[in-house]
């Protein structure tokens, strides 16, 4: 018979619980509970004062009811009464009730805090422990306010009992986590570190958790803990298994404490002191050696505890990343685990090896296990283990084994669990791109992905293959041939139709020489899929058709018939209808030349971070990306944690590949130059986003479009105000200048510290502009800060024509001034001079940075020097619209951070200014005051000149 009622058994409670258990249905249970609640309520309200035992019993019943999942809205007062009982068991139940059912009723909190205060002052260790447990369990701000300064005193006082110290340490840890601002640092911190020396291992265990948490936040204040932790660890690992008595767990000496100490050491770089460092290395070697010794017990607890310490030691070795022998030994050890009969160990070995793969010292050693890992992928019965195997293959992939790994992943994909397919697709796409030497292989791989798992191929993936094909002429013919063949399949995935449509529309001409893929055959093939596709795909196909008209005049009539049919011209979908109307009209009125210009082959996409990577990052967090060793180390040296840094370095390794179809960070205004604008633009009045962005978006740049519907090709822009410079602070495109002769339009792109500006000069007259020249000049000071190179333009602009000039910009260091654009030309015999301030300003070199509220405030505090802050208070010049303000801040280049400012009317942003010499982190906060129609703008950066300049620029915008 089990001892079901032990200690101070409460018979009434036991009867109630057993009644509930005997209830045959949910209804019966609820009925029984309601009966009990009514009974308890009447007892609590009754005239007769309840004795402590009854109170305890009823409070305990309420607790049981609550834990069954029912709401409890009374009994709190009775529970609080129990707190002041002298009987331990009554007090204990009172505290349990409070811990489980905290109520923010302020009167009650005051009473609870009062009781806690009395118990803390009681000098009775059991009562003190109950009070400390309660604070740790509730961890509310009110409690932190009341006790955060008292607990450190209890913790370090000489006469505090060991068990109370343990509770106090973890209580403080909980408060530090929930309300770090309320826990004051002070003299006690130094004394806490010395608890690592305590004789009582329980005290050391509790203290090491507290110190680790504090050291993660303020490593400098707890540096002395390193040598103490190493000493302690060394004593533990070299002790005989029985030395530590009750702290030995299945023949393993103090496993919990060992793990905690190893964890604490991961807050710091390897010790600089050679002796200490040697001692630590010795510890780690001992732990690795022990893994090879025969087990002292067959119990799984023995091996688990031993391996827990081993894995934590390996984590530390990887963290230090400085001892090649240790890293290789760690890798060999994990290699043994890969074939262990315990599933848990195989799982952990795969997981741990992922991080080892990114160290230059152990990358090669990890690669030797490729066959075992591939085998795991094929044979493991547990999907979570297979998932780890996929992660590891991804992490160990490099140029030497990419083809094998990608092939294995593709074949696994055929049978993979639905839950992980999308992630595998992303990984395959990234690896295929990153390690492609031969781009035909890349194209084949992606088409295979679509064939095997079309539903899981996200937009990013198929955008990307198009982008790469467009940027690389060596693969275009092959791509056209391959998609053409793939489309022959009777049933093909819609994503293949999209890729096929786009690629044939651009490069169908490359295979048109073969009669088996003549223009008409290509068109018929595409059109045979048309009716099976969704609206967005159909819209894309229509764009492919108009491109066909340009590529193959011989199919013009056939295509015009299709466009002209009622099912297009009168389609219920406005997008289809609009495209059909516009394309039909375009194909009828435009001359061959115009058609050729408008439907020109897509220009190469600008180089940018792969949106696939960004997507995977979002899915998995930054930890699981393969990165080059260099980037990892750079990140460390700079002490920076910006994930963009890693990206950047991998970009440098494969510059031509990291172009992107869709920008992932900055919204950009409408394109202005061709009918198939750089698809690095997301503008759509239509609910779906489309790479072939053909919506005639009304924008300031719209007048630069070649207008096919009207003869009067250029209409005057709305206004050409003097502050056109300031209009470009938060946007990159638009009309910079306009008079009756000339219109100057701008499109610019920025990436890190580099920028490229396309300037369009439109001749508004019907006469030629002669001796046209334009140059960019900078002041001497500015020349050192900003490198500007412009290419020469054609000296003649025909009437009504437009020419383009490209300007490359490099930001060397932060700057305030702006370069001037000087234009000179002769029109109808008169010499014209125009000088415009070129809108290149410091904020263009922003990279937005997402961060949590905690990080934000930590950095905000770090930039507390008065010189680093610039503040402006000013009157609103525009209506104070929230969305507009948001888009301006985003356009300014910083990431807009939600849920950081406690007042959600305020705006908070963060970003990094990239210059060639340095990177400057910037934080900003904008506080609108609607009543006063005022704003307060605060900028904090590590450079006073940057803070000032950014503040001046942004303040102009509101």
């Amino acid at each position, binding site marked *: 018979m089990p001892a*079901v009622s*032990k200690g*101070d*058994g409460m018979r009434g409670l036991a009867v109630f619980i057993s009644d509930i258990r005997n209830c045959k249905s949910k209804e019966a249970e609820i009925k029984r509970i309601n009966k009990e609640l009514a009974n308890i309520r009447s007892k609590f309200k009754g005239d007769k004062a309840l004795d402590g035992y009854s109170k305890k019993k009823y409070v305990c019943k309420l607790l049981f009811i609550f834990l069954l999942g029912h709401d409890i809205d009374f009994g709190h007062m009775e529970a609080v009464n129990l707190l002041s009982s002298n009987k331990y068991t009554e007090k204990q*139940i009172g505290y349990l009730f409070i811990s*489980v059912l905290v109520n923010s009723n302020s009167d009650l909190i005051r009473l609870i805090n009062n009781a806690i205060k009395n118990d803390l002052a009681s000098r009775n260790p059991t009562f003190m422990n109950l009070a400390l447990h309660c604070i740790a369990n509730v961890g509310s701000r009110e409690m932190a306010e009341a006790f955060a300064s008292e607990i450190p005193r209890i913790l370090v006082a000489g006469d505090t009992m060991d068990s109370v110290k343990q509770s106090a340490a973890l209580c403080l*840890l909980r408060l530090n986590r929930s309300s770090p601002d309320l826990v004051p640092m002070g003299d006690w911190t130094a004394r806490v570190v010395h608890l690592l020396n305590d004789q009582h291992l329980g005290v050391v265990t*509790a203290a090491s*958790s507290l110190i680790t948490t504090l050291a993660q936040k303020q490593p400098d204040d707890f540096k002395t803990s390193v040598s103490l932790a190493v000493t302690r660890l060394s004593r533990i690992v070299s002790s005989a298994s029985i030395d530590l008595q009750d702290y030995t767990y299945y023949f393993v000496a103090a496993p919990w404490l060992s793990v905690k100490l190893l964890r604490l050491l991961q807050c710091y770089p390897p010790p600089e002191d050679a002796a200490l460092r040697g001692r630590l290395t010795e510890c780690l070697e001992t732990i690795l050696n022990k893994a090879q010794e025969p087990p002292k017990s067959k119990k799984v607890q023995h091996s688990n505890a031993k391996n*827990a310490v081993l894995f934590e030691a390996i984590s530390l070795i990887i963290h230090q990343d400085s001892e090649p022998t240790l890293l290789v030994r760690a890798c060999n050890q994990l290699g043994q685990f890969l074939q262990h009969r315990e599933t848990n160990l195989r799982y952990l070995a795969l997981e741990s090896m992922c991080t080892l793969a990114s160290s230059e010292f152990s990358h090669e050693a990890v690669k030797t296990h490729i066959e075992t890992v591939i085998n795991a992928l094929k044979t493991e019965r547990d999907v979570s283990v297979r998932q780890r195997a996929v992660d590891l293959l991804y992490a160990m992939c490099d140029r030497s084994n990419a083809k094998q790994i990608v092939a294995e992943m593709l074949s696994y994909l055929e049978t993979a669990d639905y839950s992980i397919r999308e992630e595998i697709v992303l990984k395959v796409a990234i690896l295929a791109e990153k390690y492609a030497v031969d781009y035909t292989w890349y194209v084949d791989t992606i088409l295979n992905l679509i064939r095997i798992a079309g539903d899981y191929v996200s937009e990013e993936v198929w955008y990307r293959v198009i982008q790469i094909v467009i940027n690389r002429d060596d693969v275009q013919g092959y791509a056209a041939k391959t998609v053409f063949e793939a489309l022959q399949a009777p049933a093909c995935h819609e994503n293949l139709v999209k890729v096929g449509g786009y690629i044939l529309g651009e490069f169908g001409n490359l295979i048109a020489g073969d009669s088996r893929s003549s223009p008409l055959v290509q068109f018929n093939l595409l059109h045979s899929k048309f009716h099976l596709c969704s609206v967005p795909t159909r819209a894309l196909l229509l764009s492919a058709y108009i491109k066909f008209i340009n590529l193959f005049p011989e199919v013009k009539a056939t295509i015009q018939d299709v466009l002209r049919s009622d099912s297009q011209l009168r389609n219920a979908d406005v997008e289809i209808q609009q495209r059909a109307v516009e394309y039909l009209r375009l194909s009828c009125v435009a001359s061959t030349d115009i058609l050729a210009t408008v439907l020109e082959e897509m220009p190469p996409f600008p180089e940018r971070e792969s949106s696939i990577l960004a997507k995977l990052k979002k899915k998995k967090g930054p930890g699981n990306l393969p990165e080059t060793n260099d980037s990892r180390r750079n990140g460390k040296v700079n002490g920076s944690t910006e994930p963009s840094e890693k990206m950047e370095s991998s970009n440098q390794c494969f510059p031509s590949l990291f172009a992107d179809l869709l920008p992932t960070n900055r919204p950009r205004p409408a394109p202005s130059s061709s009918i198939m604008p750089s698809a690095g633009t997301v503008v759509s009045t239509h609910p779906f986003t489309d790479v072939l962005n053909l919506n005639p978006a009304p924008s300031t740049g719209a007048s630069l479009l070649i207008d096919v519907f009207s003869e009067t090709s250029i209409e005057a822009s709305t206004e050409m105000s003097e502050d056109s410079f300031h209009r470009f602070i938060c946007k990159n495109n638009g009309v910079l200048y306009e008079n009756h002769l000339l219109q100057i339009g701008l499109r610019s792109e920025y990436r890190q510290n580099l920028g490229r500006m396309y300037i369009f000069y439109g001749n508004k007259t019907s006469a030629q502009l002669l001796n046209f020249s334009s140059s960019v000049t900078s002041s001497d000071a500015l020349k050192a800060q900003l490198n500007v190179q412009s290419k020469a333009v054609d000296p003649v602009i025909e009437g009504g024509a437009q020419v383009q000039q490209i300007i490359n910009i490099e930001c060397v260091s932060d700057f305030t001034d702006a370069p001037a654009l000087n234009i000179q030309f002769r029109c109808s015999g008169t010499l014209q001079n125009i000088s415009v301030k070129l809108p290149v300003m410091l904020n263009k070199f922003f990279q937005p940075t997402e961060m949590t509220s905690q990080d934000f405030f930590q950095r905000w505090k770090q930039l507390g020097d008065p010189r680093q802050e610039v503040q402006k208070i000013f009157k609103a010049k525009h209506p104070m619209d929230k969305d507009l303000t948001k888009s301006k801040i985003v356009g300014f280049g910083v990431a807009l951070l939600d849920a950081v400012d406690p007042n959600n009317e305020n705006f908070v942003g963060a970003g990094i200014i990239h210059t060639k010499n340095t990177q400057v982190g910037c934080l900003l906060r904008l506080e609108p005051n609607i009543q006063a129609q005022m704003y307060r703008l605060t900028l904090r950066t590590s450079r006073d000149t940057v803070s000032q300049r950014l503040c001046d620029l942004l303040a102009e915008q509101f």
Partner: protein
Amino acid sequence: MTMQFMLLFSRQGKLRLQKWYVPLSDKEKKKITRELVQTVLARKPKMCSFLEWRDLKIVYKRYASLYFCCAIEDQDNELITLEIIHRYVELLDKYFGSVCELDIIFNFEKAYFILDEFLLGGEAQETSKKNVLKAIEQADLLQESQSEDWGSLPNEELL
């Protein structure tokens, strides 16, 4: 070992004990519980004891009719968490004498007290079995002992 929460539930999915070390609303707690009970119960016996769930790691182990399930953070040590569970079961076993699910149902408050002596704020406070039990036994000095016959209730021993 920052444990976020610990749940004990039966093979039938009945929650027997819940301990939360992070502040969450009751609604969120119920949602998490529902989701995890379902996920863990769906797993087969020989599968590994760890799984990724949201941005946390779940470590679980079954003892007789009860599942012990802990959520830890990404950097935390899975194996040592598994042994945290085991040590807790040992503590319950030692205290109740061959503990079974029924002991935890009828003496849920004791199960909480023992847990509080062992883990606090999601961290191991005292790993010595002797020391934890010593603290608990103190509470039982003033006990009113009782014993009952519980008939045919589930009383499979956990260890």
